[in-house]
Structures are given as C-alpha cells and as structure tokens.
C-alpha cells in the first residue's frame, strides 16, 4: 500500500472520528463541521491523486493501482458532495456532526475496500465501510428508520458471516489469505467452489443481487435519503470493485464456472428490480428498486468475465453509478427537505417550481436510464458489449430490453415534474442558501457528463488492470 494512500485514508477516518468529539467538547457552530470535514476531503483527495509516488509498505494487504486511484478519487468526490448536501439538509439536527463523521469513516472504509488484496483486509475494510452506516441508517430515529436499521444490521451481519465462512474454508485449504498466494495454491475442487459460493453470497447481500435483494428497498426507503445515497451509490460501487478483485485476482480457478450463475443472477436481478420499480408510488422506492436493477446491469459484466472488455464494463458502471445513484437520492433528499415531496403525486409540477434542481434531477434520471451523453449510457454500452463478446447475446438483449423498460419510470417522474400542474402550494422549508445545495449536485452532474464524453481515464485504468490479471 502506498504511503500517500494510507495517509489519505487515515486523514479521512480520523477527521471523521474527531468531528463528533470536537463538536461535543467545543460546541462548534454548524458550518464549522462542514468546513472541517471539507478540509479532510480535499487533503485526502489530493493524496489519492498523487498516490503513485511515494514508498509502499505491506503490499500484500492493500494495493494502490490505477483502479484504486481512479475509483478512489471518484468515491471521494461523490462522498464530499454527499456530505455537503446532507449537511445542508440536516443542519438543524444536533446530530449532524455524528452523521458527517460516520459518512467520512464509511468513505475511508470504501477506499480501503477498493484497494484490498487480501481477504483479511477485505473483511476489515468492508466492516469499516458498513459499521458507520448502521449508525447512519438509524439517524432519523423514527419507527421506519428503526425497522430499516434492524433489517440492515441483521442482513449486514449475515452477509459478513457468510463471507467469513467461505474465507475460512479457503484458508483451511491453503493456509493463505492474500489473493496472490491463493491464485497459486487453489485448485479445481468442489470445496473451493463451495467457498466461492459463500463469498459471492456475502457480496450478493451487499449488492442486493437477486436472492438477497429483499432488504434493500425497505432499508433505502426507510432511512433518510442522504444515507440511502451513501448506501446505494458509494458503498455498492466499492463492493463491486472488491468483488471484481476477488473474482479476477483470487478465484480465477473457479470463476469461469461461475459465469453462467452470474448471468442468471444478473438477468433475474435486473428484471425483478425494474418490474418492481414500475409498481411503486413513492419516488424513493422507485430509486431503491432501480438500484437493484443497476446491480443486475453490473453483474452482466461479471458474467462476461472471460473477455477484457468486461473489466471496462465493471469499472465504468461503478464509476458512473457512484455519481448517478448518489446524486439521484440526494436530489430526492433536497426535494423532500424543501417541498416535503415523497410520492409521485407530490412531484407534480416540481420542475416548474425548482427549475435548476429539477433539471439536475432530470440529468441524473436520464443517466440512470442510459441516455447519451451521460456516463450511464457509455457504461451500459461497455457492459452489453462485454456480454456480446463473451457469447452471451441473450443476456445483452435482455439487458437492452430491461433498460428500455426502465426508461418508462424515469420518464414518468420527468413527466410528473414538468407536464403536470403543481399540487404543493408552498415549500415546508425555505432555506435562504438554496443555491449552495445546487452546487454539489451540479458538480456531480458535471462529473457524469465528463465521464460520459471523456472515456480515457476509465478505459486506460481498465486496460492496465486487464493486463495485470492476464486477460
């Protein structure tokens, strides 16, 4: 692990940990919390960017390659913007500093997770990413968030337990934890396949893949939308990168056998997600089910793991997904805060009331639907190309059908926002600094458009990674 990258993580985590303490000791005024954590974010983003220089230490646990740098930087930016929006939406709450601190520590965990090259560090990083979110899900402290918190906690515990069981099987067979050593020592064996199934099931919980997707929408809908933005966007993308490392670096012996299972899970996950999203009345539930569907799209790329372009698909979709899903949930959070809008009926005419926010929300929705020139389009192109290249044309066709299908509900929200007459008369909260809420969302929109046009960084990183894993 590179020293700079480690310093970035440590600064992020310790700023997050100290923020609530500083707040309790010195009673800092609202804006100071956001400022302190912004400083932490900027420093660690800078350190991540320069992390290819500098000494490296203990490389068998964490690696700092192109993928880590790229996705790490994108995750940091998305998390920073999330922090700003969450701060403006919840600034009156006394617990805002705890919330922001947890967000920062969870982001540090996500940064560790995308660089983990060892099952020990993978589990610890995943726990570091998940543990603060247990607190964050409970943040609203009402009945619904209690339900969501309990569901989330037990599913998270089950996921990590399942994963640990698989890992302990691998350790029992080889006596090794690091991916590089496992690759050399593993052999084709039913027990290895069993361990793989358990590890993938653990990831399935995190990613809300099909048989384990049931908790996702309940939790994303039950908690406050700012937290749902973290859970659906940042933590899922990081888990995708970790799964990519496991599949390509640790278990290539058996992952070829898993291609068809991945394909099946991907097909069912996206179909279920899209079908259920269509049936929803609440905008947060639509977004939650669309997050399930997007997990399915990324799994298409995993199904095509024999071709190099699958890595581009995974990376691109994770990169785009960090911004589009997070931003969509944040826009929902802002609408909820300012107008109290939850259901489809509440969204009638909101586009006319909030032209700027409405336009940004539209950008995120179109990116989720896969409309050019946003990043969501190009990532889907790569994912489906990978499926066709790997000889799974049926899967690519199903994916195309699904994304055509998904346009229906995104367009439906757009139609409610722009073509209907407003129903909500006056905003419930009217913050004077509304323009500050728009800035973070606009930054995310810019990132989405830039990623959609400038293919260079992600494609280069994936080429390097593909040659590293020998594809």
């Amino acid at each position, binding site marked *: 692990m590179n020293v700079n990258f480690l310093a970035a993580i440590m600064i992020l*985590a310790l700023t997050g940990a100290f923020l609530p303490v500083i707040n309790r000791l010195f009673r800092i005024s609202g804006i100071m919390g956001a400022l302190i954590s912004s400083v932490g974010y900027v420093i660690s983003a800078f350190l991540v960017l320069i992390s290819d220089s500098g000494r490296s230490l203990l490389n068998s646990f964490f690696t700092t390659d192109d993928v880590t740098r790229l996705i790490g930087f994108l995750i940091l930016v998305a998390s920073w913007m999330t922090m700003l929006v969450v701060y403006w939406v919840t600034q009156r709450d006394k*617990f805002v500093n*705890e919330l922001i601190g947890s967000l920062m520590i969870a982001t540090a965990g996500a940064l560790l997770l995308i660089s983990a090259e060892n099952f020990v560090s993978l589990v*610890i990083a995943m726990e*570091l990413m998940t*543990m603060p979110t*247990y*607190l964050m899900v409970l943040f609203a402290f009402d009945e619904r968030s209690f339900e969501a918190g309990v569901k989330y906690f037990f599913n998270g515990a089950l996921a990590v337990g399942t994963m640990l069981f698989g890992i302990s099987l691998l350790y029992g067979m080889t006596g090794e934890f690091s991916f590089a050593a496992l690759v050399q020592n593993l052999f084709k064996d039913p027990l290895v396949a069993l361990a793989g199934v358990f590890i993938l099931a653990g990831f399935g919980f995190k990613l809300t893949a099909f048989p384990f997707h049931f908790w996702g929408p309940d939790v994303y809908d039950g908690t406050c939308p700012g937290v749902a933005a973290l859970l659906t966007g940042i933590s899922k993308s990081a888990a995708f990168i970790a799964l990519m490392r496991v599949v390509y670096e640790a278990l290539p012996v058996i992952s070829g056998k898993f291609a068809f299972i991945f394909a099946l899970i991907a097909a069912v996950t996206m179909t279920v997600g899209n079908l259920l999203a269509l049936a929803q009345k609440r905008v947060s539930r639509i977004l939650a089910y669309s997050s399930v569907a997007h997990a399915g799209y990324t799994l298409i790329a995993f199904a095509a793991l024999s071709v190099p372009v699958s890595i581009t698909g995974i990376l691109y979709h994770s990169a785009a997904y960090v911004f589009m899903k997070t931003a969509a949930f944040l826009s929902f959070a802002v609408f909820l805060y300012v107008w109290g809008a939850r259901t489809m009926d509440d969204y009638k005419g909101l586009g006319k009331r909030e032209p700027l926010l409405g336009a940004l929300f539209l950008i995120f929705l179109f990116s989720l639907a896969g409309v050019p020139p946003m990043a969501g389009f190009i990532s889907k192109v790569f994912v489906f190309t990978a499926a066709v290249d790997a000889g799974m044309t049926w899967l690519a066709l199903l994916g195309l059908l699904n994304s055509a299908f998904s346009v229906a509900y995104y367009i439906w929200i757009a139609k409610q926002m722009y073509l209907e007459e407003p129903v909500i008369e006056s905003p419930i909260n009217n913050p004077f600094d509304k323009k500050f809420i728009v800035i973070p969302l606009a930054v995310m929109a810019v990132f989405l458009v830039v990623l959609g046009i400038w293919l260079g960084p992600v494609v280069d990183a994936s080429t390097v990674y593909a040659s590293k894993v020998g594809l």
Partner: protein
Amino acid sequence: MKEILFYLFGVISAVLALLSVTSKNVIKGGVALLGSFISLGAVYFTVGAEFVGIIQVIVYGGAIIVLYLFALLTMDVKKIAEEKVRGSSAAAGAFLSILLMILLLLEASKIAGKVKPAVSGAKELALPLFFKYLLPFEIVSILLLVATIGAVAIARREE
C-alpha cells in the same frame, strides 16, 4: 489428566447450557450461560488452545453475558415467561440441532486420531499480529472506535 478435565468441563458446559435454556428464571438462565461459557473456555485450555480459551472467557464470559443480562433488564421478563413455546419452532430447532450433531459426528469420526493438537498461544499470535498484520490491526482500532461512537450516539440520542 488432560482427558479427564476435557470431558469434565465438556459435560459441565453442556449441562449448564441445557440449564440456561430450560430455566424458568431468565436471570438464573443467564448465570448458567455464564458458567457454560467459562467451562467451554476451560475446554479450550485443556486442548492447548490457550488464546481461544482466554478470548472465550474475556469476550463471552465478560462482555456478552453483561450485555445479555442488561438486555434482559430492559425487557418485560414476566411477559416472556408467560409466552408458550410453539411446537413447530421447537421441532425445527430440534431437527436442525440433530442434523448438525450427525454432521459433526460423521466428520469427526473421519478425522479422529489424525489431527495433532497445535498450540495456539497468545505468544505465537503476537508476532504476526503486530508485524505482518499491522495495517489491519490498526484499522481494527478505527472499527472499534466507530462502534463506540455509534453505541454512545444511538443510546443517548434523546439529548
């Protein structure tokens, strides 16, 4: 000597575990569970797994039991005592535990006599933990810190 102690503590642990689930008084059940955990720790000592035994006593006998008893304090114990155990859930539990026992016995009979007891003391663990696994070790401290902040923050939310 070793064998005698192993079986002695094993039997004590099993009997106390049985007591802890059958006892009408939940506090008595909790104390029986504590005894069960500690004698299980002694079982680990007799087979040479010292560190695991110590962890069993510190974590289970110390922390988990305290949490368990405090959780009991916040509940309405009388209400729980009146609730009837459903036949179906008892049957499912019995089925699962018998299945598990058969599996364990089958596997154990296969490897019986082949396994040499390996010493897993705390001293052997120290070098890898503090040198090879240094980075994960320090990250664990952040993990515990988050858990502390989370526990305090959730429990004292009302202020």
